[in-house]
């Protein structure tokens, strides 16, 4: 699971980002192999989200290069944010259909496909509910279903679980990870939750703050075993790894 064995889906080389005089990210290089789940952890303000924006093509680095072979190859990129961004006036089914409608599918076709997807995400009973009637966890499920409905080859996650309570977060992590693994896609997740990063990722990149640099790279052995994130948290060596990363961020 090293970062050089397969052809990279995303590659950053010597990337620096500046906002005026302020250097947000300095000399960052890493590769995301195809099919891997890579997490970026670090203190708030260390430029994690900036890196995600670079990968998505929303920003340009001051120096260095960013390659996103998935986007350049015309394949779909999906996003998940901390906020679910559901449209209040659409029911769950209609919200899930939004991704397909955005791509120009006829409304009827899109909504029929969306309705078929609901059971996969545990939403089958909630198709006709409006977002205001749902709990935070259910809303995030709907958001994930909407993102996955377009079958993205690359998934960019910006603290997708941080607004949820611990219980819901663990449950959702497990379920969504399973769906994601079945899709065979590549994922880059930004989070400040070290537990979460270690529990779901193949690789964890540790960043230190101001300016943001890569402090360490960890290949995580747990995800490849197919264990659920809850079980990984119980696994031998999990606590040690989390502590190591925590110290790397602190120093």
């Amino acid at each position, binding site marked *: 699971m090293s970062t050089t064995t397969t052809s990279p889906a995303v590659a950053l080389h010597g990337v620096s980002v500046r906002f005026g005089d302020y250097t947000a990210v300095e000399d960052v290089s890493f590769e995301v192999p195809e099919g891997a789940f890579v997490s970026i952890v670090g203190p708030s303000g260390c430029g994690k989200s900036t890196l995600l924006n670079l990968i*998505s093509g*929303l920003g340009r680095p001051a120096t260095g290069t960013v390659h996103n072979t998935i986007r350049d190859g015309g394949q*779909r*990129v*999906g*996003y998940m*944010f901390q*906020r679910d*961004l559901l*449209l*209040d*006036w*659409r029911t769950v089914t209609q919200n899930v259909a*939004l*991704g397909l*409608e*955005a*791509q*120009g599918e006829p409304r009827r076709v899109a909504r029929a496909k969306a309705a078929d997807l609901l059971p996969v995400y545990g939403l089958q009973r909630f198709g*006709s*509910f*409006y*977002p*205001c*009637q749902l709990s935070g966890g259910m809303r995030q499920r709907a958001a994930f279903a909407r993102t996955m409905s*377009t079958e993205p080859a690359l998934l960019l996650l910006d603290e997708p679980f941080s607004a949820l309570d611990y219980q819901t977060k663990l449950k959702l992590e497990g379920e969504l990870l399973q769906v994601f693994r079945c899709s065979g896609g590549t994922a880059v997740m930004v989070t400040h939750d070290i537990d979460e990063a270690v529990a779901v990722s193949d690789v964890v990149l540790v960043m230190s703050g101001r300016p943001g640099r890569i402090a360490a790279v960890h290949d995580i052995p747990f995800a490849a075993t197919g264990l659920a994130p809850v079980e990984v948290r119980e696994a031998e060596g999990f606590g040690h790894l989390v502590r190591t990363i925590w110290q790397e961020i602190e120093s």
Partner: protein
Amino acid sequence: MTTEQELSRPAAPAVQPLGTRGARREDAAGRRHRSLALAIVLDLVLLAGALTAWQLAVDAGSVSSLLYGSPEMIWRTIARGVASGSMVRDAITTALEALAGFVIGNVIGATVGVGLWYSRLVEQMLRPAIAFLGATPIAALAPIIIVWAGTGVSSKVVMSAASVVVTALVLAFDGARGTDPLQIRMLRSMGAPTHRIFRLLVLPSSVTNICGGLRLTAGLALIGSIIGEFISSDSGLGHAILIAGSLYDVPTVLANLIVVGLLSLALLAAIGRVERIILRWRFLALSGE
């Protein structure tokens, strides 16, 4: 019009109960229902008290009925006007003028307002014109509009629409501009071209504001048509008020004003109904958690 807003909220929305949350929701709806009933009762009590005091003061001779009229005289004027049909005809004329102006003004205003989201350049170009139009007293334009559109119904419709259009436009534009930028970014990332972002996101995002515009402009539309009738007309409530005013017939002026007020209440109630259908999702949010 806070009581009216209260009126337009749904009493008990038809939603599938969400486990135990269903019971709580009914309680909330019940509470709102009771407080609304209380508000209406208190309104009626206050109104009855004020009218009684007024009538007693007139009967005792301490208030001149010639200058201020009396509830009894106003009531008789209304009864006579309804019986002869003249007041009903006037009310229908004014209501149709105001309704036509209201619809035309809001359609034009909302369409242009939301459409301005497309082009920053056009929006910036139009900004001074909108400010100019917004600061123009429509009453000052009335004589010219009568010259342009004639003395018939159409000039009142134009007056009414002109009173409405700027408010509707500004609110619709604010609604469109207030679209969540992250949601726009999300749709763009999903591959939606601008016209589709407009249809799927910007337009529905603006609907809340456009409904607010309907509420705000209902009264303006009525005022516009009545000012039009003041300048030149042969029917309508404005016409009746003008004639009665020139004859110092205070009860008739007040009676017609009451009818104007009732028209505005009816229009707002109708808007409330429409809003409840269009913004169903919003009333679900208000009624529950």
